[in-house]
């Protein structure tokens, strides 16, 4: 945050914008500007991404060799738990909505701010309290239960389960407040003429996400409170030793955590629609199909939680219903993929860094989605569940999907956020490294998983070592790509060439205001004269870098 403040000081000479309008630490910590709150989230959430990434690198390093090498089983169990908990609850859930959604959504619908700016700032403080408590839990004895906190192991574990679970409970409120704010903003603050079908698909994606955040997160909250009550006061809810039922916990947990997977992916899908249309310089294909499929996914996401539990001992007929619904939720995702590919048909495609991430997404999310079909098929899931196949599938969806889209969006809006361009050559090179490193890390995990390698194993039979070596080497390439990205993006904030208003020739409203935008986003209330993707009606040439309009 302080780095952002000094940046604001350095561009004092520029026209009035949200970065230089006010200065000083206080102006940041007490800001009600959605753009500044987005930046507060950017720095805090990315610090957590760094932390989760370090955990991941340590895990991969330990797995290079089958036996116990430079850590104990206990440390290993803590590392994979913390990697999961940090990446899920502190990074990926807030990533797109709280960083890019906060910054972009109000501008995209022509609003001055979100509906409840104070609530927006409160949600960031709640995020910080939750994060600090989570870090405290790590210091106070760590957690070794897996990010899923399955009972009765989590009831009996001697690690700091209560602080970590309390942290996630608190983080839930941050997520709920953000979602609530976006729902109200989209309903009430659209500029005149911004009808529902003129909204950018990113807004549709964030809107569908917000509905899930508001409806599903309380379930997780209640579940975690029950877990705390059980641990702290011995009230038997999940632990059979106290008369509870451990499978009940799994139902409660996945009732939130499956919809949560869509909290993670829907915003990324929203970014994809922006990127593919902008860099194909062409009208989006199937606008309504993409918009409705987001809503369909949001709805169906509540009805598939049992597919995490095909071998848990749940009734066979419950398994049948969940398997069926799981296949149904795959269809809208497929529809989106086909529409994105069709958007490129007869376009005029250019390959800036954001588009490279969008193309990576098409490749990796296709694999992530299709491998989900294996897992939805009950008989095949029995063999594959709880193996590295699941680990690979999950990372192909979450990293190959959400994070690829997030990086694409981050590069896409970076010039708008900072008024500075990053270096395109470094951007492209890092995008290639991320793509190669990611696939080398996780593709071998599909093979070792279907060959039977269980997940969460500290040591493993030697026959799987070749796959683990590939995976670990891949993690180094991926780490290098991310490191380069961090360097040139941070460099650009201060020393990058000035960004024009519309470097990409995009048609959504955020590109009609200056970079960085003025404190209230627009000098006057924007007029909606065309749809967000009407490249057939309006042609805007990308503006040259360094020559601000």
């Amino acid at each position, binding site marked *: 945050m302080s780095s952002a403040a000094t940046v604001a000081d350095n561009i004092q000479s520029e026209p009035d914008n949200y970065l230089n309008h006010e200065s000083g630490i206080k102006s940041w910590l007490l800001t009600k500007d959605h753009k500044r709150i987005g930046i507060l989230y950017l720095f805090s959430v990315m610090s957590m991404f760094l932390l989760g990434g370090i955990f991941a690198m340590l895990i991969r390093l330990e797995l290079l060799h089958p036996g116990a090498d430079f850590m104990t089983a206990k440390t290993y169990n803590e590392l994979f738990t913390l990697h999961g908990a940090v990446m899920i609850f502190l990074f990926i859930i807030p990533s797109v909505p709280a960083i890019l959604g906060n910054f972009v959504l109000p501008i995209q619908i022509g609003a001055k701010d979100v509906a409840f700016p104070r609530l927006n700032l409160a949600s960031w403080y709640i995020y910080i309290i939750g994060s600090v408590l989570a870090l405290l839990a790590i210091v106070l004895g760590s957690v070794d239960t897996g990010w899923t906190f*399955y009972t009765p*192991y989590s009831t*009996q574990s001697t690690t700091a389960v209560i602080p970590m679970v309390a942290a996630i409970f608190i983080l839930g409120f941050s997520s709920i407040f953000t979602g609530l704010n976006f729902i109200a903003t989209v309903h009430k603050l659209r500029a005149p003429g911004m009808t529902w079908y003129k909204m950018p698909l990113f807004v549709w994606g964030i809107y569908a996400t917000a509905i899930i955040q508001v409806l599903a997160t309380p379930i997780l909250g209640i579940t975690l409170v029950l877990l705390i009550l059980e641990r702290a006061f011995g009230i038997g809810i999940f632990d059979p030793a106290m008369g509870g039922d451990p499978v009940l916990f799994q139902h409660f947990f996945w009732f939130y955590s499956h919809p949560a997977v869509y909290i993670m992916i829907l915003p990324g899908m929203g970014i994809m629609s922006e990127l593919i249309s902008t860099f194909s310089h062409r009208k989006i294909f199937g606008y309504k199909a993409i918009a409705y499929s987001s809503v369909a996914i949001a709805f169906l996401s509540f009805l598939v939680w049992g597919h995490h539990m095909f071998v848990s001992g749940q009734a066979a007929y419950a398994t049948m219903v969940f398997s069926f619904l799981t*296949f149904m939720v795959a269809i809208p995702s497929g529809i989106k993929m086909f529409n994105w590919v069709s958007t490129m048909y007869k376009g005029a*495609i250019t390959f800036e860094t954001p588009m490279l991430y969008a193309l990576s997404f098409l490749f990796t999310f296709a694999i992530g989605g299709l491998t989900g079909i294996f897992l939805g*098929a009950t008989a095949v899931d*029995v063999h594959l569940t*709880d193996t590295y196949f699941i680990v690979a599938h999950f990372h192909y969806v979450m990293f190959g999907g959400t994070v690829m889209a997030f990086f694409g969006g981050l590069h896409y809006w970076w010039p708008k956020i900072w008024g500075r361009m990053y270096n395109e050559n470094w951007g492209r090179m890092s995008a290639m490294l991320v793509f190669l490193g990611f696939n080398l890390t996780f593709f071998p995990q599909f093979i070792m998983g279907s060959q039977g390698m269980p997940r969460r194993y500290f040591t493993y039979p030697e026959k799987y070592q070749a796959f683990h070596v590939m995976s670990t080497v891949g993690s180094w390439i991926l780490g290098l790509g991310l490191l380069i990205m961090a360097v040139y993006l941070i460099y650009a904030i201060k020393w990058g060439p000035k960004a024009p208003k519309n470097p990409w020739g995009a048609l959504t409203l955020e590109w009609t205001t200056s970079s960085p935008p003025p404190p209230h986003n627009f000098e006057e209330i924007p007029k909606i004269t065309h749809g967000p993707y009407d490249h057939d009606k309006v042609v805007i040439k990308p503006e040259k870098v360094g020559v601000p309009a």
Partner: protein
Amino acid sequence: MDSTGTFWLPPGGSTISGSVDSLFYFIFWASVFFFLLVVGLTVYFIVKYRRRGDEEAQSHIAQNLKLEIIWTTVPIILVAIVFVWGFKTFMKMQVAPKDAIEIKVTARQWMWMFDYPNGSNSINEVVVPVDQPVKMLMSSEDVIHSFYVPQFRVKQDVLPNRYTVVWFQAKREGQYDLYCAEFCGKGHSEMRGKVRVVSAEKYQQYLEGGGQSGEEQGGGGQSLASLGKQLYQSRACNTCHTVDGSPSVGPTWKNAFGHTVEFQDGSSTTIDENYIRQSILEPKAKIVKGFQPVMPTFQGILNDRQIDGLVAYIKSLSEVKE
């Protein structure tokens, strides 16, 4: 292919593995098709329609109802096939044949314990006969574990508060890996065992020799049913329950297992392992019609193995099994 394994799958060793693998490869090739379609078209478009100079897009066509219908219905049909195929095979995995040999599996941090029908037992290595269905009746003493034999394509969570079942029929003699697949703490990755598949004769010899301890020391063991019979006397079950069919303070155990019982509230159930377990631990949860709720709970008095023993004993008193 089945016995050697493939690039994706380890060799198949059970009667179910072939059908799981066929479905796996059906989905695999369908996925390859859709992947090549999406990525192939993407590559084709980005090469063919890359911007050259300052040109604009050649077309802005934004909808095509026919295409939308095709790419919605074709995947629906395909996943419907996968759904039905997957669930049918799943049901075969779920329902053990009636003549299956029953082995009791007890999981604990961090070992597998096996009790054979004749009272032999073993730890971390289970011996089963080839070409015969084997049913594992499983429970855990502590946290959740999961019984996973990759080459048999079977996996089932093992729970601390109820019995779960997995069954398989091995097709070839040999040694197969057994993994715990549900994270269970420090020793999780060491909770690995073996399934040793032997001929029917060798299996009999193994049992008669007293199982693992017999192999190791030449001694014998006690079957669950005989443990139950002993407990029936020593824990005074016989005060209220008979084993000859005559009613007493409580219902008789003779011909109870596998039969339907009617409760005071009018509902009924078929007596199975979980019902018996519940009746021992929470005797007031379900009261059999015509009896009083007077039985004390045996929670904390009987351990899991002793409850297993009573279940096995009650089972042995019934002419109808399952």
